[in-house]
Every structure is written in C-alpha cells, then in structure tokens.
C-alpha cells in the first residue's frame, strides 16, 4: 500500500513537473461584455496581446498563450474564473480583475494555488494591506492614491466640505475610507455620504441629497455607466453649470467622456494613473494601440499592458515561472515603461508610480478625436500612495 502511494505521488509529481515546463499561460479576467466593459474589456485584451508580442511571443523559450475570462462585472463569476484557471487549467498569471470584491478573493486563490495575480483593474487598497499576499502585485491606481490626488487641490481653493456619492460595494466603501483619510489630512471635512446600488438608473435623488448637504465638493465614487448617469444628471440639474458643489468623478476615463461628450463634461477634474497624451512616449504607444483597437487607451488598458509586460519580464529575469520567485523579482527590478513613471514595486505588493490630476478640455480646446484631458498636476507616487502598513500586511511582519 505504502509503495503504491509513493508511486502515485511520484507520478503526480512528474505530471506536475511536466506541466510546469509547458508554455506560459496568462489569463485576462475582466468585464468583457457587461456595463463596465468599455473601461477595460476588449481593449485590455488588445493591450495584453501587444505586451505578449513585444516579448516576441515567448519567454524562457516557451510560447506565451492567452486565455480570456468574462466576469460580466459580477464578483462571484470573477472568483470562479480564477479558481478554474488556477486549479484546473494551469494558468500561471491572471491580469485585469476588475471588481474589488472578486479581486480580493482572486489574490487569496493565487496564494493558495501558488500562482500569480497581477491586479490591474480593481482598486481596493486592501489588496496591499490586510489582503496582501506573496503572490500578487497591485499594478496601477488604488483607492488611496486616487483619493489623494483631489482633496488638496480642492481645499487649497477653499472647497473644504465633502459629501460622498458612493456605490455600495467593496470598492466604494474602501475608497470612501481612504478619501476620508486624505481629506482630513488636507484640512477638509466630510459632511455626509449617500450609498447607491451598483447599476442604478437614476441618480437625481442622490444629487439632491448632496446639494442639500451644503457640501462644497462631491466626490462621485463609482464607475462606468453609473458615473455616466451621475454626471449626465448633475448637468441636467444645473449643478455642473453652477459649479457648487464641485462634482469630482473619482473614476473617469476616456470612455466616459466619449459617452457624455465634451460639452457636458468640460472642466471636470479627476484623478488618473495615465493619459495617452501625457508625453511623446505615451503617445507613441497609444497610437499603436489605436491602430489596432480604433480608440485611444483608457488608463485601465494601459495598466493591463504594463502589468503583463512586466510580469513576463520578471519571468525572463528570474529564469522561472515559480510564482513567489517572480513576484520577488518584480519587487527588485527596475520598472519603466510608457505607463509607469518613477515607478517601483513596494514590499507590500503595490506598484508605486506617478499619479495625475486631469481636467476635461472644453470643446474649443480639444484638437481632435480623444483629445479629452489636460494633465494639470503630477503627484509623485510616494506622496499619493498610503504608507506601508506593517500592522495590516503580513508580508511586512517578519
């Protein structure tokens, strides 16, 4: 019996070793067809394909394959895709992952199955605090770094009372907590908040509550179609023209401006981790992206490229696709591409890089298709991201 067991284990080990030598498999998980699919979705697929091509389609002499998972913006689907990929389909690394609640589950699955997660969509700062793992990196923006961009600029102009209009799930709650910290640090105060369900249709009721609160700034913490509806209706109620309270969409991409038009969004300010027209380098990559996708990249799509590219670079440098080794390599290697400027991966798994405050151009200022934003300020990553928290993140505890 004992012999049989040993034999079985040995053959299982050979089997595993066999798969370990096989090609590098990357899974892009995200909302490919649902309400948020314009933010990342099929565009992220193009970005990831570009990253694979830029590596010559192979690493360590093995071909790179890409699989796509559509979570339709549902957390439970996200987690089940991750589980299937890691457990049954030998996916080495998952990139994208666009719902914070699903992303938290995914990174713990990555740790359990000893695979890699490169979270390039979801923003919860918990991913590098209580949910940090040795198997993932949070590549790009997070709820803290984005909420650090706006308050200071607002308070300096005398707008110091904030009222949140927030979507009611992990991302919204985490960003509200992070934004509160940043607002108080900047000398402002939070006078109230209202939570709305994901995928609400009419936001006028919430806008009225925000107006009635007497706040001078209303950070809108939601994304995609929710943001589009909020801004459209804030315009309808005359809030945007009046300028009080100041409406600040916290997740605002080219796709949202496209859906609303410049006239309806002019002079709105928002945080961003990337803008295609930032400099020559970002413009050059974005033009290539546009040739293939027909549109300029959103910051999510740029993040998907950068995450994939650096993951593959790390595999190459480490000479193995062993998950923990690759993540360690990422933390020690130089990070520099058109997306991530002044960047490095911190011990807790956060990619720290420059953040931007962007302003939507007026129709007169805009010089062509997708010329939507002007970068008004650059905030260094060290100032924008939260300090590492040894009490929360287990990686910092030994």
């Amino acid at each position, binding site marked *: 019996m004992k012999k049989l067991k040993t034999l079985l284990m040995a053959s299982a080990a050979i089997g595993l070793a066999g798969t370990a030598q096989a090609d590098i498999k990357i899974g892009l998980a995200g909302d490919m*067809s*649902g*309400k*948020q*699919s*314009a933010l990342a*979705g*099929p565009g992220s697929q193009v970005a990831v394909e570009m990253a694979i091509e830029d590596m010559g389609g192979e690493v360590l002499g093995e071909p790179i394959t890409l699989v796509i998972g559509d979570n339709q913006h549902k957390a439970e689907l996200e987690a089940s895709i991750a589980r299937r990929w890691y457990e049954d389909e030998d996916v080495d690394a998952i990139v994208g992952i666009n719902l914070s609640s699903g992303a938290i589950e995914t990174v713990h699955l990555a740790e359990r199955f000893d695979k890699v997660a490169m979270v390039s969509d979801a923003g919860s700062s918990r991913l590098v605090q209580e949910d940090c793992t040795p198997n993932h990196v949070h590549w790009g923006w997070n709820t803290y770094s984005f909420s650090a961009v706006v308050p200071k600029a607002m308070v300096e102009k005398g707008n110091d009372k904030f009222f949140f209009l927030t979507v*009611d799930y992990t991302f919204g709650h985490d960003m509200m907590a992070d934004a509160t910290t940043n607002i108080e640090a900047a000398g402002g105060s939070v006078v109230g908040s*209202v*939570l*709305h*369900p994901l*995928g*609400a*249709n*009419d936001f*006028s*009721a*919430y806008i*009225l*509550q925000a107006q*009635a609160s007497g706040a001078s700034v209303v950070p809108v913490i939601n994304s995609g*179609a929710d943001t*589009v*509806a909020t801004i*459209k*209706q804030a315009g*309808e*109620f*005359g809030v945007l023209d009046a300028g009080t309270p100041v409406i600040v969409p916290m997740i605002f991409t080219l*796709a*949202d401006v*496209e*859906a*609303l*038009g410049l*006239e*309806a969004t002019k002079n709105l300010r928002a945080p961003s981790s990337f803008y295609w027209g930032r400099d020559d380098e970002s413009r050059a990559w974005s033009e290539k992206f546009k040739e293939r996708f027909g549109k300029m990249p959103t910051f999510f799509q740029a993040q998907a490229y950068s995450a994939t590219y650096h993951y593959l670079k790390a595999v190459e440098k480490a000479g193995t696709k062993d998950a923990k080794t690759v993540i360690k390599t990422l933390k020690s290697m130089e990070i520099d591409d058109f997306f991530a400027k002044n960047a490095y991966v911190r011990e807790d798994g956060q990619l720290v890089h420059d953040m931007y405050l962007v302003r939507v151009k007026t129709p007169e200022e805009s010089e062509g298709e997708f010329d939507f934003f002007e970068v008004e300020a650059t905030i260094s990553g060290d100032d924008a991201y939260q300090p590492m928290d040894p009490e929360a993140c287990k990686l910092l505890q030994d």
Partner: protein
Amino acid sequence: MEIFGVPLNLLLSQVMLGLINGSFYAMLSLGLCIIFGMLDIVNFAHGAMYMMGAFFTWMLGHYLGIGYWPSLILAPLLVGVIAIVIERVLVRHLYDLHHIYGLLLTFGLVLVIVGIFRGFYSVSGKPYPIPEALTGVTNIGFMYMPTYRLWVLGASIVVCFGTWLLIERTRLGATLRAAIERPDLVATFGINVPRMITLTFAFGSALAALSGVLAAPIYPVNPLMGESIIVVVFAVVVIGGLGSIIGSIIGGFVLGTLEGLTKVYYPEASHISIFIVMMIVLLVTRSGIAGK
C-alpha cells in the same frame, strides 16, 4: 418642518423625482402588459425595444441631423416596424405553445439585438443633449426641477391614460379585447384578427421605444440600458396584476414614488424595495393588485 428627520422640501422633491422615474416604469409596464394581455407573450425583448428607441434617437440626430421632436415619432415608428417583422416571422408561431417558449424566444432576441448594438457601438454609450426648448430648471415651489423632467411626467401621463382610454373606452379597443377572447367569432365579422394582433405587438413595442426617446436626454444611452430597467418593469407588471392595464399604469407611478422614498430613508435598499413589494403582493393576493 421635518418628517422622520427629513426636511419636507427634500422629501417632496424626492417624491416628485420618484414619480418621474415612475413614469418610465408606467409607460414600459403598460406596453409589456398590453402585449401580455392581448398576445399572451411574456415579452422579454421589451427592454431591447426601449434601448432601440433611445439609440435610434441618437442615430437619427447623429447621422441624419434629425432633432428630438421628430424623433419622438420616428424612433417609435422604426421600432414598430421591427416589431412587426419580429411578430410576423418569429413570435406568431408560438401562440399555441406554453409561455416559456415565448419567454425563451424573446430572451434570445435580446441577446441578439443587444449584441449587435454592442458590436457596433461598444457599451460606453452615446451623448444626447436635452432639447433646446426644455433646458434649464423650473421653480415648482418646493424645488427647482429640470424642465425636461416635467415634460417627461406630463407626456407619460397623457400617453398612459390615452392608451387606457383607447383600449377600454373605444370601439377599436372593444374589438381588440373581443378578438383576444374569441378570435374565431370576431373573424366572422370580417375583422382581420392576425393583423390586429401584429399591430398590437407593434404598438406595445413602440410605447417602449417612446420611453426610450424620452429617456435619451437624461439616462445614459447604451446597449445595456434596457437590461437595467426591464427587471423592475416586470416586477411592476406583476404587482399591478398581469394583464391589467390600469394596474400597470398606477403601479408604475406608485412604485416609482416608493422607490424615491427609499432613496431618502434607506438608499442602500432602493434597488430591492420594489421586489419586496412584489413578494408581499404575491403572497397576499396571488395575482397582483388589479389582477383577475
């Protein structure tokens, strides 16, 4: 003055906004209810008709430079024509089968229609401005209401009760109702019953499209816009009593208001308030408030 800790003005404003959202529920559930009542088809594609109404409005403006006012007629007409084709080619074969077949067919249609629009226009949506004549806000005593929303409220009341009158109080409506009960008998009077059924399907769909046109300037115009509203509308139809026209209309307005009130007192529950009512109504009455 405050009511349960909410200033009266704010409360009245929320009731008003709820009524306006309710007018969309009312118009959409009315169309759905007519189709169900007359054709016995659970039309899952109703949300797609609403979406097409809004999208055609944008397309008419974007490609042909046709403004909002002509679109109010043109977009529902276009959707009506599409509905005629769908009824003649597909739906008609299912009248003698169980409800589930109609539901499956129309659900499949939603996937196809939405898929086509998503393929061409992605999900991010298209901008549509409020028509010049209705921009700005109007002081209605307790709040400044966007003028456009007042127009939506007025238009939907006229459309809803006009439709009710047409079906319940005119000879045409009487014939239609008779044709549902005894198509064979009505046909002996020389009335073309199949054509009548086709036109009813087209009319119900055109009503959805009209709601779509009204929605275009204030809600995001994107291929998925029908999906988010249609589930609520189904609940409204169930609460109002399946097939009851007046139940759908009043249900739409009342439930919109209720949802508005939930947004003030417990916003987190605003999405489920209507479904809670649906559960209670079904448990108590089993056939909806005005159902038979």
